[in-house]
């Protein structure tokens, strides 16, 4: 199970077994592999089975089995009353989902990508996020908004934006970003059961990735707590925070840094709002250095919030300035080479970590390891 299979084609999903991390409790020879897509599908299936109030709505979720096949088999199992193929109006079906949530149902609204959620953002913010507060707690909104977020491969400016910081700035929402299959299952189940509106940011390129899952994860009662980050890899020299696809990149960077004697602690945020400030602070107080990693645009991003939080809580512990690695401050270009340079790569994370550790950094922009 320790074999590492790596495919280095750009944009292809990486099939690999996760390296040992003590927080995983070691390997079990009975843990099976599960794709993130399967993890999401099984979570939806189990929650819909357990609670007849849960329903799924979105474009192509029914007959087409889901634009990315996440809802495969659900229409057949639960029927058209609970798996609704909607007309093309994000504003419309989001508003309807919110209205259904106002009165007793638990809708899961799927956006084909979160880029299209902008056409519905009034309902997400003004109707879903704020209604419990505005109604003085009389109306609750147990709704989940989910779909792929961030860059895929070669899909251009209007299909590649990361919305984590937009939604995470709004009180009343919870914002989750799973990485592994365990994250996908546990966090989606938690989101569906949560009485508050949850924005669930998946990643298209992770759908096809497989991760080992233990028997506990496979159990239908499995659930992860919202608001808790996960230490994917323990370290003592520098803290690197990441979420979604970037967790994988950060872990690869950690392996490279280890060869240079830099022990990096990788934090998988899992929850963007609420942010696990205690965990990040505890880690920085241990390592004294911080690098934040995200795919999204730099200004007002998740890294900016983490940096400000650390300075508020742990300024005295920092031995180096906090650095944020983000996507480029441009709409996403299409050409493969341009796209690669507009997104963080493993080398960018490695160089940032080295800078934080006062190591000299090679001048060449692109280096392969």
């Amino acid at each position: 199970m320790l074999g590492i299979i790596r495919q280095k084609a750009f944009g292809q999903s990486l099939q690999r077994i996760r390296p040992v991390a003590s927080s995983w409790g070691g390997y079990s020879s009975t843990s099976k592999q599960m794709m993130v897509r399967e993890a999401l599908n099984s979570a939806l299936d189990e929650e819909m089975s357990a609670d007849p109030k849960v329903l799924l709505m979105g474009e192509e979720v029914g007959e087409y089995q889901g634009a990315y096949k996440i809802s495969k088999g659900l229409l057949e199992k639960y029927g058209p009353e609970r798996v609704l193929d909607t007309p093309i109006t994000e504003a419309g079906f989001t508003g309807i989902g919110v209205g259904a949530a106002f009165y007793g149902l638990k809708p899961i609204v799927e956006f084909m990508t979160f880029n299209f959620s902008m056409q519905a953002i009034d309902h997400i913010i003004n109707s879903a996020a704020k209604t419990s507060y505005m109604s003085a707690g009389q109306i609750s909104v147990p709704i989940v908004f989910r779909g792929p977020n961030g860059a895929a491969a070669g899909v251009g400016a209007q299909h590649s934006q990361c919305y984590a910081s937009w939604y995470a700035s709004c009180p009343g929402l919870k914002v989750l970003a799973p990485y592994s299959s365990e994250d996908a299952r546990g966090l989606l189940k938690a989101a569906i059961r949560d009485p508050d509106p949850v924005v669930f940011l998946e990643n298209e390129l992770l759908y096809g990735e497989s991760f080992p899952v233990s028997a506990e994860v496979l159990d239908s009662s499995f659930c992860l707590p919202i608001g808790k980050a996960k230490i994917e890899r323990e370290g003592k020299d520098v803290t690197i925070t990441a979420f979604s696809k970037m967790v994988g990149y950060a872990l690869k960077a950690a392996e490279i840094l280890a060869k240079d004697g830099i022990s990096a602690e990788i934090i998988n945020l899992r929850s963007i709002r609420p942010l696990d400030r205690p965990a990040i602070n505890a880690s920085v107080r241990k390592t004294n250095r911080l690098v934040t990693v995200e795919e999204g645009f730099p200004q007002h991003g998740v890294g900016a919030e983490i940096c400000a939080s650390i300075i508020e809580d742990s300024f005295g512990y920092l031995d180096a300035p906090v650095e944020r690695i983000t996507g480029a401050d441009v709409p996403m270009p299409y050409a493969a080479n341009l796209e690669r340079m507009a997104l963080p790569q493993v080398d960018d994370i490695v160089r940032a970590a080295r800078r934080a550790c006062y190591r000299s950094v090679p001048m060449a922009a692109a280096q392969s390891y």
Partner: protein
Amino acid sequence: MAMRMRNVANHVKSRMGLLSVTNHGASFSSSTHIGKFLAISPPVRDFKNPDANFSKIATCRFESTKADSGRLGSQYSSIDSNQVLDFPGGKVAFTPEMKFLSESLKERIPCYRVLDDNGQLIEDSNFVGVSSEIARKIYSDMVTLQTMDTIFYEAQRQGRISFYVTAIGEEAINIASAAALTIDDLVVPQYREPGVLLWRGFTLQEFADQCFSNRGDSCKGRQMPAHYGSKKHNYFTVASTIASQLPHAVGAAYSLKMDGKDACAVTYFGDGGSSEGDFHAALNFAAVMEAPVIFICRNNGWAISTPISDQFRSDGVVVRGQAYGVRSIRVDGNDALAMYSAVYAARQMAISEHRPILVEALTYRVGHHTTSDDSTKYRSVDEIERWRLARDPVTRFQKWIENNGWWSSEAESELRSSVRKQLLNAIQVAERVEKPPVANIFSDVYDIPPSNLFEQEKWLREAIKRHPQDYPSVFPL
């Protein structure tokens, strides 16, 4: 004044035949069950005479939306009846004649009314009867609403509350539509329908408390004045965003349908709101999902300063219903009896047939848009006064109930002075009640308060303790 025979009804008697739009010699059948309201059967069509059918189109809005070759008959001189296109939704006939559907019908959709401008019942009218008790409650609630709006508006002008929205001129829409519903029907309002909440039992003190956002406010001081909400009255909290409530109502109606409840969702919006994308999505979806929801459009002629001629070029909002496959009616919004009847009928259809209904109520926004507006800047004072005096829905209904012997001038003066006194008292009381506690800043953001809000509240209280001179002592902790 001699009482018309039709008016004598001490118990509810339904006069069916609501489907037949009366005196046009229509070839429709109408169900006429006195005392019971059954699902309305669709009208019989005269297939042999397509012309007759087409000229009736303008007057009958209850037909189903199946394609009907008879309908096209008079518009197209040659229909190739041998070849049809078997298209999803029904067969479509071909024609070699190139003809564009006109952008407007020859005649505007007529407006259903039952009481004339003087409160006299119109001959041969169809309506749903009301008992004297209901009629008196409708009237006194209309008077209460009108008085409340006047007094709260004045309170804002005096600086006692920061903001207010009146519904002057639209009392019949507010109260009569509410009267036609049951308490189980979900009301998803815009912001000019406090009368629906009033009908359902929200007290004058509760209205005042919300406007003053004091400790007694059931909305915990969270919202601007007139943004009421009450779960126990099945009245969803008012939101400021225009037309966002329309798809909400459809979703809630879908939930009701899944529960199999004998109830529907009812949502209100204005002529301006019909321009929003949410209007399109809501009607389209409601038809596709077969949701039991009533869409009530208060077409009052103005969206702040935008007159309807700048808002749309269709014949109002009622014509759009058919485009979505939604049954629709145009009603005189200032005729309380017509409003009551139309909403009553709409509710029956919505629930028994699982379909959306669109009701366009024509009326006039006598007041300003809100207290932040001075409408004399963009419309003539004459126009406002004409509607306020000559077309007042309250006096119109008053004349009708007086004619029935259900009301008197003594009852009138007693009602008006009592309501006025209660309102002034409610304001005085509300003004003196203290403001909501500091804890209300932080609660209800989430189901369970998160740790960061606990911390923030703690820091805030510490700051207040350390610097009491910076925090007004009148604000409770």
